[in-house]
C-alpha cells in the first residue's frame, strides 16, 4: 500500500526539537503513533530510543558521500557552524537533479559548492544560475512522501557496506532538507532531539492506556518494529509474552520521607540500609544471557564489560553500580567522579576498566534460578540475597549492609554521618514488603542526608525556554578566590530551579537592572564585593573536575534561598568547597 512515511516522521523530529514541554512532546509522539501504520511507527520509535542499529551505515560514510559532491572545505565551515552532521548534510546536499549539465557558465543549476575545478571539461564550480524564487519547488523536494521508513531500514539491513552508501545517496537525492535530516537521523542514530527512551515508553503507555512499567518489562523481549506490542496497544492483540532471555523487571522505588513522616510508622517494622550514590541497576543473568539494566530498563551492558563478564549466575539482582578496588577482602568504593569515568561511553578501554573497575553493591534479589522472589517479603528476599551474593566473585559483587537502629531519631542522625562520602542517605524498607514496580506509598522510604550549602554570587543569567522564555532563569554563580583584599569570582556551578515563581521575578528584575554585558541570550551581571546578589546554593555532592576552571563540579545544585540581606563579600570562598572534596 502507498504509505506516506518520511514527511510525518520528519515533521515529528522537527516538532520534538523545538517543543520544550514534556507533555507536549508526549502528545506529539502519541499522535504520531496513532496516525502511522505498522511497521513504520515501530522503526520510528526504535530510531528515537536508539535501539535501531544499521551496521552498513556509519557517520564517516555519510561524510564521505557529501564530500564527493561538495567542496570539503566549504562542508567543513558549514559543519563547524551547524554543529550536527545530519543537519549539515541535509541542508548542504546538492540533489542529483541540481547537478550541472556540461554546458559551462549558464548550463546547470548545481548548488555551487562542487568539487572538480581542475578538470577542464567540468564547468567551473560556480556555474549556478540563480534559482528563480517564484518557480515551483525542485522535483526531488516533494517526492519524499512515498519513501516508507520500512523500505529504508529493511533494505539497508540486508545490504553490504558498499551498497549501503549508494542507496543512501539515492534517497538523499529524492528528499527535501527535512526529509534528509530525518533519513540521516533514522539510519545513524545520534538523535539529539531531547527525547529519552523513558519518555518514548511513557508515550507508548499513554497511547495504549497502559502503565509504563508494563512497557518497560516487555521492552527487551520485543523485536523491532514492535508489531505485536502495537497490536496490544491498539487493542487488537494479546499482551506480548515477555520473551527475552534475562528480561528487565520493573524497579521498585522509594518515596522521600523526613522524621515527621516516619513518626507515623513503627520503627520495628523497618530495616535500614545505606543509599549508595552510584547508578541503580538490575544485573540479570539467565540461561547464558547477561544484561545490566538501568532503572528505567535501558540496557547499559555495553558500558560495563568487566562486570558483565563476572555475571555467571542464574538470577536477577537489584543493586547499585559503583566503581572501586578490591583490597584486603573487601571492595573500597571510589568517588562519584570516578564512576563518571565509566558513564556514557560507547566503548570502554582496558585501561579505564582497570583503573575504575565496576561492581554491584546488592540491595535485593528478584529472581533466583526458577524462583520469582518478588512476591516474598523483604526479609525473606534479604536472606536469599545474602546466601546468593556469598557465591559470587567478591571483587564484583558485595552486599549493601543493613544499618541497625531502634528509634527514628537514630536514623535521622545516622543519615547525616555516613561512613563513606558516596552515600546519599538511608533507605528504609518494611520487613514484610513484597517487591512491586513503581513507587507505592508506605513500604519503602528514602531519607536523604541534608544537602551541602554554600553562599555564592550570581555572575551570569541566561534566558529560559518555553514558559520561562521572557525570564532570566538559568543562573551561573561563583565563589571568591585569590587575595582577601583583591578577591575575584570563579564560577562553580549552574542552577535553574529551586526558587518560587515570585523569586524568579525578583531575580529577573535584578538581572535586568544590573546587566553589565550581553552575549546573545546570556547577560553578565554586577558581581562585586559590595554589589551583587548572593544565592544560597544547595547541592548533593562535589567532584573534582578538570573541565571547570574552579577545579570542582557540583552535583544537583539548586537555589535554596535568595540572600538579599547578605553582602557579596560575605559569600563563600573556593577553599571552602575544596575542603569538602576530602
Amino acid at each position: 500500500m502507498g504509505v506516506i512515511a518520511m514527511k510525518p516522521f520528519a515533521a515529528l523530529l522537527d516538532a520534538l526539537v523545538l517543543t520544550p514541554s514534556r507533555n507536549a512532546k508526549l502528545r506529539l509522539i502519541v499522535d504520531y503513533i496513532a496516525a502511522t501504520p505498522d511497521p513504520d511507527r515501530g522503526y520510528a520509535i526504535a530510531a528515537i530510543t536508539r535501539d535501531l542499529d544499521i551496521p552498513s551505515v556509519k557517520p564517516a560514510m555519510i561524510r564521505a558521500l557529501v564530500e564527493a559532491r561538495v567542496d570539503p572545505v566549504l562542508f567543513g565551515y558549514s559543519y563547524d557552524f551547524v554543529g550536527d552532521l545530519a543537519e549539515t548534510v541535509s541542508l548542504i546536499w546538492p540533489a542529483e537533479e541540481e547537478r550541472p549539465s556540461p554546458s559551462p557558465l549558464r548550463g546547470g543549476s548545481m548548488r555551487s559548492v562542487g568539487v572538480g575545478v581542475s578538470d577542464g571539461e567540468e564547468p567551473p564550480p560556480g556555474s549556478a544560475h540563480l534559482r528563480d524564487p517564484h518557480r515551483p519547488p525542485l522535483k526531488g523536494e516533494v517526492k519524499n512522501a512515498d519513501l516508507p521508513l520500512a523500505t529504508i531500514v529493511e533494505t539497508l539491513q540486508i545490504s553490504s557496506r558498499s551498497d549501503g552508501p549508494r542507496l543512501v545517496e539515492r534517497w538523499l537525492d529524492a528528499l527535501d532538507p527535512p526529509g534528509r535530516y530525518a533519513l540521516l537521523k533514522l539510519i545513524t542514530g545520534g538523535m539529539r532531539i531531547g527525547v529519552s527512551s523513558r519518555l518514548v515508553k511513557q508515550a507508548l503507555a499513554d497511547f495504549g492506556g497502559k502503565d509504563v512499567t508494563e512497557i518497560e518489562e516487555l521492552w527487551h523481549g520485543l523485536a523491532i518494529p514492535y508489531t505485536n506490542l502495537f497490536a496490544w496497544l491498539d487493542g487488537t492483540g494479546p499482551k506480548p509474552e515477555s520473551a527475552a532471555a534475562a528480561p528487565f523487571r520493573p524497579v521498585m522505588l522509594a518515596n522521600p520521607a523526613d522524621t515527621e513522616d516516619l513518626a507515623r510508622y513503627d520503627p520495628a517494622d523497618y530495616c535500614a540500609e545505606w543509599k549508595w550514590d552510584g547508578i541503580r541497576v538490575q544485573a540479570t543473568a539467565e540461561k547464558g544471557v547477561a544484561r545490566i539494566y538501568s532503572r528505567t530498563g535501558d540496557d547499559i551492558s555495553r558500558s560495563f564489560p568487566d562486570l558483565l563478564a563476572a555475571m555467571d549466575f542464574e538470577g536477577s539482582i537489584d543493586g547499585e553500580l559503583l566503581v572501586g578496588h578490591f583490597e584486603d577482602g573487601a571492595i573500597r568504593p571510589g568517588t562519584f567522579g570516578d564512576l563518571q569515568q565509566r558513564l556514557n561511553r560507547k566503548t570502554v578501554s582496558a585501561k579505564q576498566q582497570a583503573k575504575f573497575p565496576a561492581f554491584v553493591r546488592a540491595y535485593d534479589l528478584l529472581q533466583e534460578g526458577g524462583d520469582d522472589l518478588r512476591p516474598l517479603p523483604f526479609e525473606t528476599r534479604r536472606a536469599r540475597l545474602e546466601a546468593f551474593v556469598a557465591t559470587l566473585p567478591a571483587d564484583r559483587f558485595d552486599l549493601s549492609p543493613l544499618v541497625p537502629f531502634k528509634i527514628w531519631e537514630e536514623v535521622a542522625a545516622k543519615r547525616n554521618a555516613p561512613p563513606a562520602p558516596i552515600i546519599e542517605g538511608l533507605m528504609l524498607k518494611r520487613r514484610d514488603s513484597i517487591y512491586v514496580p513503581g513507587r507505592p506509598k508506605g513500604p519503602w522510604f528514602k531519607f536523604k542526608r541534608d544537602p551541602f550549602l554554600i553562599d555564592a554570587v550570581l555572575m551570569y543569567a541566561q534566558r529560559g525556554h518555553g514558559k520561562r522564555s521572557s525570564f532570566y532563569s538559568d543562573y551561573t554563580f561563583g565563589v571568591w578566590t585569590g587575595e582577601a583584599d583583591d578577591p575575584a569570582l570563579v564560577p562553580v556551578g549552574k542552577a535553574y530551579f529551586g526558587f518560587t515563581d515570585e523569586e524568579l521575578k525578583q531575580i529577573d528584575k535584578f538581572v535586568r537592572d544590573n546587566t553589565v554585558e550581553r552575549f546573545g541570550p546570556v547577560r553578565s551581571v554586577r558581581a562585586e564585593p559590595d554589589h551583587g546578589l548572593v544565592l544560597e546554593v544547595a547541592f548533593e555532592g562535589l567532584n573534582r573536575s578538570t573541565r571547570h576552571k574552579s577545579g570542582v563540579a557540583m552535583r544537583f545544585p539548586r537555589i535554596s534561598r535568595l540572600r538579599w540581606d547578605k553582602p557579596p563579600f560575605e559569600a563563600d570562598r573556593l577553599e571552602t568547597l575544596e575542603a569538602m572534596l576530602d
Partner: protein
Amino acid sequence: MKPDKLLHPTDKGLYCPPGDFFIDPVKPVDRALITHGHADHARAGHAHVMATRETLDIMGIRYGENFAGATQEATLGKAVTINGVTVSFHPAGHVLGSAQIAVEAGGTRIVASGDYKRRADPTCAGFEVVPCDVFITEATFGLPVFIHPDDGGEIARLLDSVARFPERAHLVGAYALGKAQRVIALIRKAGYAETIFIHGAMEKLCTYYRRQGIDLGPLAPATIDKGARDQFAGKIIVGPPSAFADKWARRFPDPVACFASGWMRVRQRAKQRGVELPLILSDHSDWDELTQTIRDTGASEVWVTHGREEALVRWCELSQIRAKPLNLVGYEDEAE
C-alpha cells in the same frame, strides 16, 4: 587606478581617499555615503550625509531631524561627482531605500553593495546588477547550508499555525526596519485581513512605509486593556526579536514564539532562542544568491565583509576569482 587606492577599510569604515568620503562609516566623519537605514550602517553625527530619500527619511525617524549637519539626496541611477570620483546609487533589494553604491575613478569601478537580496520583496525596489571590477559583498548567510525557501511557504506555515491554535497568540519576532513590514505585507498578500498588532518600537516605521504607498492593512498597537488577557488569543503580533526577552512578552496568552530570520534554517539556532515556529525569511542573500550575484557583476575581484567571509572567499578561489576578506569592524550579523 588600483582598487585599494580607490577604497580601503579604516577604523572608521570604508574610505575613498581621492573622493574624501566614507561608505557606511561606524564613527562620525565629515562626508558619509550611506547604503541603507539599518543602525549598524546608518549612524547619526556625520557632518554631511548622502543617501536615498527613503534612507534619509528613515534616519530622521530614528535619530531625529538633526541626525547630520547637511544631507544630500541620491537619485537612483544618476551619477554625481565628488572630488573627481564618480558616484552612483542603485537598488539593493534589502529594505526600503536600500542602495548599492558604485564608486568609479581612473577607469576602475567598485560596487559597495551594503546588504542585499535578489528575490522579490513587496516593500522595496528589486536589486539591480551593476557590472564592476571589484564587487564588495556581504556574507551574512555566506555558507552553502543557507538556502532561503520560498517566502510564501513560510507565511503559509505561520497562517496554518494561527488556524490550528486559535487560543494562542502568535508572536512574530522581526527586525523593526524592513523585516517587520515585509512580514506584514506578505501576510496580507496571503489573504489575511485581520488586524495585526505591533510593538511600539515599530509604529513610526510602519506609518512611514504606509505613507510610501506600501499596503500593510489594519494595524494596532499591542497594548493590553485592563483585565483582557484573552484579547490576543488567535492574533498575530509582530515585535522586534529583543522584545521577546522582555517583560513585554508576558502579556500574551500561551504565546507561540515565531522568529522570521534566515538563521531559522538551522534547528539548533531556533532551539537556542526558544523559537517554536521558525520562519525562514531573510532580507539578506542566501548562498545561491551571493554566488550568482558575484558572477552576474562580472567582477574580477571580490571583497567579502560582515559574515562568514572565509566560505565565500573559498568559493571565489574555486571559481578562479580573486577574493579577500575585508575586515570592517562594527557591523552586526546577528540582529537580522
